[in-house]
């Protein structure tokens, strides 16, 4: 049984971090059911925060040419093409002379592309099998086949299709492992409950990178420091909305007090269920999950894995107290053994 503590379990992080007069915790609710994939969030973020480009490579991952969240991409819009029904919709290609779907095979081919983002670890080549699985959805039955896309001779024809889009961002976890492991105090918890890297303190040790359960934080080459979404700390301080949420034309990215957002999100899920979209679900909203709930949570239309999100993230420092306890016990045991050895040796 894991007990709740400052590293795990439900918690209001700002007061826990010592902000005595913290206001309500602020965050993002990203509703992917209304995302139109315009990438205005990516551009607005870079423009406001002065984030450099992350490479000019055609990745072939549908319309995603950024690849992932990196030190040079603090918002990232994922595009997933799937030969699956969108629930309520008339099948887009019903009645057309189509063959089998190619999207899993195209996704697999794209997974082999490397994107030089100017960061490390950046976007390493993906796993073709995993990529194909994402594109195929839960019914995926195996590898997409050895033939090049479109060459397979299966008799089945595709009629259903959906194109999922999702703007991903740092989750601003309740229990942020990046912050926990930061040796310099560069990563800190703000009065808004968000997690921010202080660029003038970061020494580039990179501990935060392996600590993040979502693979968000990343190092900029040449500069060596870690960079990620600050939830526009400077704008929040001035009473403004973060740049991405401000730019989003369809209110897919909503910014506000987390409690309100959670309420709104629950209502939205109910509406979608009522309208025949049973796949709609929330991700990262639950304060009892492995990271104590995210400050930036999502409404998804499929399993989190389809969007490249871990299904059950756990703060990597969850077991730290227990580990220290065990380490302490081990040290004591070692010391005892050493003493015993000496004692025994002298007898």
């Amino acid at each position, binding site marked *: 049984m894991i007990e709740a503590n400052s590293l795990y379990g439900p918690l209001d992080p700002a007061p826990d971090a010592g902000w005595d007069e913290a206001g309500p915790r602020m965050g993002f609710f990203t509703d992917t059911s*209304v995302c*139109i*994939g*315009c*990438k*205005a969030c*990516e*551009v607005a973020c*870079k*423009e406001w925060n002065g984030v*450099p*480009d*992350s*490479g*000019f*490579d*055609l990745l*072939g991952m*549908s*319309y995603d*040419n*950024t690849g992932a969240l990196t030190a040079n991409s603090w918002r990232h819009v994922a595009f997933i*093409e799937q*030969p699956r029904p969108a629930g*309520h*919709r*008339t099948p*887009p*290609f*019903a*009645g*057309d*002379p*189509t*063959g*089998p*779907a*190619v*999207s899993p*095979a*195209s996704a697999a*081919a*794209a997974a082999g*592309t490397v994107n030089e983002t100017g960061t490390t670890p950046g976007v390493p080549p993906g796993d073709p099998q995993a990529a194909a699985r994402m594109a195929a959805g839960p019914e995926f039955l195996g590898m997409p086949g050895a033939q*090049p*896309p*479109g*060459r*397979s001779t299966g008799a089945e024809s*595709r009629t259903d*299709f*959906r*194109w*999922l*889009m999702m703007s991903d961002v740092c989750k601003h976890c309740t229990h942020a492992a990046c912050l926990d492991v930061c040796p310099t105090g560069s990563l800190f918890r703000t009065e808004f409950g968000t997690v921010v890297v202080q660029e003038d303190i970061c020494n580039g040790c990179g501990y935060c990178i392996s600590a993040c359960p979502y693979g968000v934080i990343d190092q900029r080459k040449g500069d060596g420091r870690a960079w990620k979404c600050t939830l526009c700390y400077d704008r929040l301080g001035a009473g403004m909305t973060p740049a991405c949420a401000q730019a989003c*034309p*369809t*209110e897919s990215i909503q910014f506000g007090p987390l409690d309100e957002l959670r309420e709104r999100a629950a209502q939205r899920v109910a509406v979608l269920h009522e309208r025949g979209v049973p796949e709609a679900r929330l991700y990262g909203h639950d304060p009892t999950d492995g990271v104590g709930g995210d400050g930036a949570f999502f409404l998804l239309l499929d399993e989190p894995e389809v969007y490249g999100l871990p299904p059950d993230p756990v703060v990597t420092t969850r077991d730290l107290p227990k580990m220290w306890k065990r380490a302490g016990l081990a040290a004591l045991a070692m010391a005892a053994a050493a003493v015993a050895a000496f004692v025994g040796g002298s007898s």
Partner: protein
Amino acid sequence: MAEAHPVGFQWVMEAKGRGAKVFHVDPRFTRTSALADTYLPIRAGSDIALLGGIVRYILENELDFREYVLAYTNAATIVSDEFVDTEDLDGLFSGYDPRTHTYNERSWQYVGQEETTGYRAADRERDTAAGLRHESHGIPVGGQVRRDETLQHPRCVYQILKRHYSRYTPEMVERVCGIPHEKFLELARAWTENSGRERTGVLIYSVGWTQHTVGVQYIRTGAIIQLLLGNMGRPGGGVLALRGHASIQGSTDIPTLFNLLPGYLPMPNCHNHATFTDWVDSIRHPGQKGFWANARAFGASLLKAYWGDAATPENDFCYDYLPRMTGDHGTYQTVLNMIDGKVKGYFLLGQNPAVGSAHGKAQRLGMANLDWLVVRDLFMIESATFWKNSPEVETGEIVPEECRTEVFFIPAASHVEKEGTFTQTQRLLQWREKALDPPGDARSELWFFYHLGRIIRQKLAASDKPRDRAVRDLKWDYPTHGDLAEPSAEAVLKEINGYEVATGRPLSAFTEAKDDGSTAIGCWIYTGVYADGVNQAARRKSRHEQDWVAAEWGWAWPANRRILYNRASADPEGRPWSERKQYVWWDADKGEWTGYDVPDFEKKKPPTYRPPEGATGVQGLAGDDAFIMQGDGKGWLYVPSGLQDGPMPTHYEPAESPMRNPLYGQQANPTRKVYDNPINSVNPSPPQPHSDVFPYVFTVSRLTEHHTAGGMSRTVPRLAELQPEMFVEVSPELAGELGLAHLGWAHLISGRAAIEARVLVTDRLTPLRLDGRVIHQVWLPYHFGREGIVTGDSVNDLFGITLDPNVLIQESKVGTCDIRPGRRPTGPALLELVDDYRRRAEMTGGRPPIVTTDASEREVG
């Protein structure tokens, strides 16, 4: 819409959130389709068949809004018995002249009015895109028409329309468009069920619709549906064009077109408009009904704004200073003239024809044969560097050392670095402030032209040549401010609005315009934007502080009216059609029209008013003639005059098509504008032989991430990285057929060029089953060129030049090509490849056959 207009698409999402059902018709599955409830893949260039199918569905099932149709459209009007439909002439209307490839409109007229059109040189009107001038006011027809209110007369418009579309069945839609008929019916049902007394539907198109040889008729078909369903002049209805850039509406109102002057006054033509009176009479048509009787005042006031004190009633307000059109001066004719050495200089302002216009090679070869070229842009674009890095340099067709054109690149200020107005699709003018100074030498357009004019006038000050008088006499006295001597945009807006010459008082309405030289107006339809000396376009009253029409946000022409023809939002007796859709109505107690918007009707004219016998002008309009700018006061389901290619939209195949027209022997628009020039060619289409050399259909459009020809996005890292390479989207089925691999290369060949692109194999594209065969379509973005951070071949190079006959817009949304795996050859081998295709297709130059039916030989009239 989500692809090209993501900000506007938020309102579609908002409507969807309230339960609206969204349909999306597009050759490829786009970001819009992803959010739509129903997506209908369609063959590019077949929209009239689809929309004609909807018209038939409405008429066959009697789903039209009958009271509206009877009262406000010309459905009951009886047409001349000389008229013969395409159903009887295999795709041609009566009056076709196979020699000039134009129509004589005599037989299209309302019965008894065959003589009123008089002689019309249709080929000359086509050359000057004369139809454009009707944008704001319709075409005059005689006032008194014969009607059959029962709609049973075989020659009434309703019955003619019904017969014309009788073969546009759901099965035919499937054969022509590739849309399965169940899906077609789903669309037809939704559209009709959501229109009528209680509900209205809006039709929104993007300008890709206009880039066809039948582009005007595409929009006409949409307008017919909207009229039949009672969706015009009512809140939530209408036909809206989403423009390709900010203020494209503004650039037709105050035109950047060769054939129009501000406010849709026609540019004088040397053949018809010898005198000022000839010119204004051609606009106002003395003796006919409608609102154009004031044309003399608008014309005089415009000339007074141009030439100030020099313009007097005695010299016809310097009318003779105005240039005269002699024929086609459109952009494509001009480019061909450049190639032929007839044009010496060229200004390009925020335009990149080397990438953005059809037949890129013709554009570049034309520009390479000038004395001088001025390019004003934010970034160094292909149209400024074609002489050193275009495809023609690689093939040796342009030699940089020998290219004679002197290019002047002049940096321009962006929209945030200058002040002025944008006019959007609803005719709303919105003032924008300057946010910051332009960098370095960059300057506003206003600055550039004001000072250019000032310097030219200085140089000509001592000239006594008659040809220089027009420039020397110009009123050119705008106040300037600041270190850069920036002219005042507000002063220009005030001149556009118009003012009383003696006092300088800004006019409040165009009804104040005088024909005696006492008023000067830069653009009469904009009069009122500076009423009371206040910049009305700068109004920013929050929507929370006013009603839902938000009349105090910005200013809409004409007269701040937000919905045109809004008299139609009330029934013939002047009562709202329904409480839910009430907008403008007759207040019997006050004896005037009232409502949320400015009524588009004479304020005091009661619904019961009937014109006395022989009344003309405004008096000729009855109290229920809602479409006040039309000669007969009615919305036109059938257009008796003013269109080059027929009174009713008809499905013709694109100029390049792999298919024979399933509906008529006439393959393509018989009046389309073609150019006989060795540089231009058209890939063969049935019934010509060798159409199989170019078996695939390609269509082009935009990506959200880029802007038009890429000059403002390929140059910006934050946009360029989002779509970093030229690509072609192909279906899995076509990829299998051709051996194309995802992320591999392919090249596409037409009779003009060969281009290469990376391949995206995607389920978003689908083959279509048409008339028993499978047709493959591919899609490409048209943003790429040789300059900027990310580069690639330009897909517009694949197109030839064939134009819509009404407005001279090129067909650049559909063409045919061949596709091969791998990269294209380079250097002279590239030319050999294209030549090889041209040989195989027997493209020996000259125009393709225009008439493909022998029906014209038995035509009538």
